[in-house]
C-alpha cells in the first residue's frame, strides 16, 4: 500500500545548512512538498507550534538546545506525544541511539544520509501517523453517533414523568431500571393505557445486544404503533407482532416477549408470553413464577400464543425482567438463576416494601461483573393496597 505523502509536513532541525539542504532534497523527492527548517532545538520548538509538522527530522548536537532536549520537551506536551521524531545519528553509536530512544525518539536515520533508507523510514512513520489519525477520527465519529443513538434508544422508553402519571391514574407503583451492556442494547419495555380500567405492559428482549439488537428495538417501536391493543387479547396482539417481526428479522434474530393487560375492574392480569424470563406474581404472601413459555417472536410465521389470566388484586404485584438478571454473574457469585428469583424479590420487599426494585438492583450489582454481559431491564408493577 503506497499512500500519497503530498499533504504531509516535515520539519528539519539541523544547525548545518548543507545537511538541511540535502535532507530536504531527499524527502522532496519522496513527494513531500511542505518542508520547514530550524537551526537549533529552541527554534525547532517554536516552529513546531507554528508549522504543525507531521514529522520532525532532528539532529542531536546543536547549539542553544540540542535535539535530545527538544524531543523531551515535545514529549512532555500532550499535543505532541504522538508526533514522529526521527533522529539523525551515526549508525555505529549504540550509546547515542539509546539516548535518543530515551528522549522519546520514534526512529533513526543514519548519518551520513542514505536517500533510500531516509525516505523509507520517513514514509513508514508518516503512513503510521496517517492511519492512526484516520482511526482516531473514525472512532471519535462513531462515539458521537453512538451517543446520539443511545439518547434515541432511551427516548423509546417511558420517561419518569409519564410513569408517575400512569401510576397515579391507575393506582399503581411503577419503578423501572434499564441498562445496556454496551452503548446500545436490545431490550425494550413500555406501558400502554388502554382505557380507564385497563393498562398494558410489554417487555421485549431481542437476541444478542449492541447495534444490531438496538436497531431491532427501533423496528419494534414502529410496529407497536401499527397494532392497536385496545380490542384484542394479548395472545392475538403478540401473534400480529410476531408476523410483522418475522417479515423484517433475518433468521437467527428474534425476541422474547411478555405482554400483559391489567384490568382494574376485575382485578385480573391477562397475558401472553413468547419465551420471556418467568415473571414473578405476588398476591398476598404468595410469590410465584408465571409460566411464560412461548415460541420467540420473529422465528416462525406459524407461531401461536395463548392467554393466561391470574388474579392481581390491590396490594399484589408483577415483576418483569430481562434474562441478564438471572444469567449475569461475577467472580464470587454465580448468576442468580431462575429458581432464586422469588426469594430475591422477597428479600427486597423485606427491605423496602413500597419500592423493592432499589434493593434488588443494589444486590444485583453487588454480585455481578461489570460491564454487564447482556442488557438489563427490570420493571416493578404493584397495585396500591
Amino acid at each position, binding site marked *: 500500500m503506497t499512500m500519497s505523502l503530498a499533504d504531509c509536513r516535515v520539519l528539519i532541525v539541523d544547525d548545518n545548512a548543507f545537511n538541511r539542504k540535502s535532507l530536504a532534497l531527499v524527502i522532496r523527492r519522496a513527494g513531500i512538498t511542505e518542508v520547514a527548517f530550524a537551526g537549533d532545538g529552541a527554534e525547532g520548538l517554536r516552529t513546531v507550534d507554528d508549522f504543525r509538522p507531521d514529522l520532525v527530522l532532528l539532529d542531536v548536537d546543536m547549539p542553544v538546545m540540542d535535539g535530545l532536549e527538544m524531543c523531551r520537551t515535545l514529549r512532555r506536551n500532550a499535543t505532541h506525544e504522538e508526533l514522529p521524531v526521527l533522529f539523525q545519528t551515526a549508525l555505529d553509536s549504540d550509546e547515542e541511539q539509546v539516548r535518543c530512544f530515551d528522549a522519546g525518539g520514534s526512529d533513526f536515520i543514519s548519518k551520513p544520509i542514505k536517500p533510500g533508507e531516509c525516505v523509507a523510514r520517513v514514509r513508514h512513520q508518516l503512513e503510521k501517523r496517517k492511519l492512526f489519525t484516520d482511526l482516531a477520527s473514525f472512532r471519535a465519529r462513531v462515539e458521537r453517533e453512538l451517543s446520539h443513538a443511545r439518547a434515541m434508544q432511551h427516548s423509546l422508553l417511558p420517561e419518569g414523568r409519564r410513569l408517575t402519571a400512569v401510576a397515579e391514574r391507575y393506582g399503581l407503583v411503577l419503578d423501572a431500571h434499564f441498562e445496556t451492556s454496551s452503548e446500545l442494547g436490545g431490550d425494550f419495555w413500555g406501558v400502554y393505557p388502554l382505557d380507564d380500567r385497563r393498562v398494558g405492559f410489554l417487555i421485549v428482549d431481542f437476541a*444478542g*445486544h449492541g447495534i444490531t439488537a438496538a436497531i431491532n428495538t427501533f423496528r419494534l417501536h414502529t410496529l407497536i404503533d401499527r397494532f392497536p391493543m385496545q380490542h384484542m387479547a394479548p395472545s392475538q396482539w403478540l401473534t400480529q407482532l410476531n408476523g410483522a417481526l418475522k417479515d423484517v428479522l433475518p433468521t437467527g434474530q428474534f425476541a422474547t416477549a411478555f405482554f400483559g393487560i391489567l384490568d382494574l375492574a376485575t382485578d385480573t392480569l391477562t397475558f401472553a408470553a413468547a419465551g420471556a424470563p418467568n415473571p414473578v406474581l405476588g398476591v398476598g404472601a404468595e410469590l410465584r413464577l408465571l409460566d411464560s413459555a412461548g415460541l420467540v417472536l420473529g422465528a*416462525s410465521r406459524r407461531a401461536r400464543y395463548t392467554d393466561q389470566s391470574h388474579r392481581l388484586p390491590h396490594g399484589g404485584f408483577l415483576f418483569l425482567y430481562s434474562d441478564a438478571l438471572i444469567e449475569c454473574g461475577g467472580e464470587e457469585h454465580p448468576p442468580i438463576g431462575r429458581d432464586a428469583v422469588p426469594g430475591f424479590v422477597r428479600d427486597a420487599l423485606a427491605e423496602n416494601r413500597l419500592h423493592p426494585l432499589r434493593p434488588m438492583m443494589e444486590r444485583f450489582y453487588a454480585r455481578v461483573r461489570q460491564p454487564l454481559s447482556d442488557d438489563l431491564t427490570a420493571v416493578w408493577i404493584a397495585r396500591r393496597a
Partner: protein
Amino acid sequence: MKFQQRSTPDAVEVRLMGRLEFTDHDRLHDIVGLLEITRARGFVVDLSGLEFIDSAGLGMLLILQEEAESRNVKLTVRGAQGDVRRSIDLARIGEIITIDS
C-alpha cells in the same frame, strides 16, 4: 464453545461443549461449513456437553435449522440438560427444530 464432530453413514454429528453465547458467532460458521460439505441426510447437534445457552445461542440453532432445511438435511437437536433444556423449552424452540430428549 468448543465442538467435536463425527460422522456415521447416515448423519454428521456435532457435539457442542461449554457455553453457547453471543461471542460464539464465528464458530457457527465452522458448523455451517460442516453442513455445506456433508453428503449425509442427517445432522445431529448434541448438546449434552453444553452448560449454558443464551438467546444468541438459541438464534444460532435457528440459523442451523434454516441452513439444514435449505440443503434438505434433517437437523436434530438432542441431549440438552438442565439450564440449557430449560432455555430451549422456555423459548419453545421445539416448535421449529426437532428436539430429541
